[in-house]
């Protein structure tokens, strides 16, 4: 297979991933975005300082995960008897009731996938600073692509709201501190969707590789 992002013979640099139209220069101006002229697919979004923002957002996401997963989200009480809901105990109750498949799906979409997503983003945005980590970082980018759409914090949030309103007629529903952390987590997760641009990771790697090759050539000639 031929190396490189550019097909030198024809000068094409990229093809639209949704309609296969060949395209020339495909990097959006910083802060802007490019869409395919034929099918209007988003070709490239080039957020300013993508890697820095992604690193900051994903690390704060990982930290915020601790209170969001351990503190109770909601408290429901009828007269004096009350019970609490955390991210995990719904999964446990389903698991105990025998709904293993449903429990693991809920666990995966609301805890495992969002957490892995933050972890991968933190690893990608910090790891691409070192040349030694090039291979694991490219693998992490690949995993990120697969896991991205399974992280459903925003859907879970809507589920919390529906539960909140639906049970209001039965008893007293109180929003607990964990839910505020969870909202923060959801906002952070959506912000990383905006800030992360894998092309800037690839560009950074290519630049470093070119610089290494140049310095090596310099050593040989001197």
């Amino acid at each position: 297979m031929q190396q490189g992002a550019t097909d030198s013979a024809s000068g094409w640099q990229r093809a639209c991933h949704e309609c296969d139209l060949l395209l020339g220069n495909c990097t959006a101006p910083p802060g802007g975005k490019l869409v395919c002229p034929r099918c209007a697919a988003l070709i490239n979004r080039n957020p300013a300082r993508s890697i820095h923002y992604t690193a900051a957002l994903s690390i704060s996401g990982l930290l915020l995960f601790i209170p969001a997963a351990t503190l109770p989200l909601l408290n429901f009480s009828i007269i004096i008897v009350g019970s609490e809901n955390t991210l995990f105990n719904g999964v446990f109750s389903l698991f105990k009731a025998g709904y293993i498949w449903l429990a693991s799906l809920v666990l995966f979409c609301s805890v495992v996938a969002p957490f892995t997503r933050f972890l991968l983003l933190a690893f990608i945005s910090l790891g691409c600073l070192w040349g030694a980590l090039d291979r694991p970082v490219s693998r992490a980018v690949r995993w990120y692509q697969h896991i991205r759409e399974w992280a459903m914090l925003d859907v879970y949030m809507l589920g919390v709201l529906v539960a909140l309103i639906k049970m209001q007629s039965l008893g007293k529903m109180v929003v607990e501190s964990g839910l505020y952390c969870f909202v923060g987590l959801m906002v952070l997760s959506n912000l990383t969707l905006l800030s992360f641009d894998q092309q800037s990771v690839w560009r950074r790697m290519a630049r470093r590789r070119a610089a290494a090759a140049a310095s090596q050539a310099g050593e040989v000639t001197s």
Partner: protein
Amino acid sequence: MSRAEAALENGLCTCLCCHQLMRLPPGETRGRCTRCGATVHDRIERSLMLTWALVLTGTFLLVPANILPVMTVIYLGSGEPSTIIGGTLELYANGLWGIALIVFIASVAVPVMKLVGLVILLLQVQWRGPRNPMQSMRVYRVVAAIGRWSLLDLFMISILVALVNMGAIAEVRAGPGSTAFATVVVVTMMAVRTFDPRLLWDARYRRNSEPVEDWRAGGDREPAEEVGDG
């Protein structure tokens, strides 16, 4: 738009993971991306077959998902199991029509819309090619974007099961329909992933081998009119 502008016709293909353009060795349809290491195909392998299989699975599972109860709310010892549609109607009857609408869209309309949309796209690829590919792309994008919201009902059930758990006073139990519904959502999300929208454009070329519209001439991206019919 001429066929020559499709990457496939030039022996090039795009890595769907990192979007790198690559030249596959002649005669090969798959390889490995030199940049991210993902397996690269000229088109997603067996895309139509897999999508059909998953769509049919989803359609069959939609029956138990809607017939079997998903949840039982027991309050002071009494309570009846409710299905997905029953739960929505109950919300509507209680006057919470806003929430009822959200739940209805997420758990009834979205799965059906997804399946219908995918069947339309599959038929377009296999029969004649889309008349208006932009419209098909719009269908594809809507189907891809709305899929995850169907899990709303299941998240709500998992929250309520933990939250309303007071023995004799009030209890919420999950029902067997929820398992079927979860499988519908997962299967349809996978079906969208296995469908390759570039096949729509290939079918478009097959249908209409001469140039139809020129996007560079006018600002209008939609074909103004159809030239030739098949």
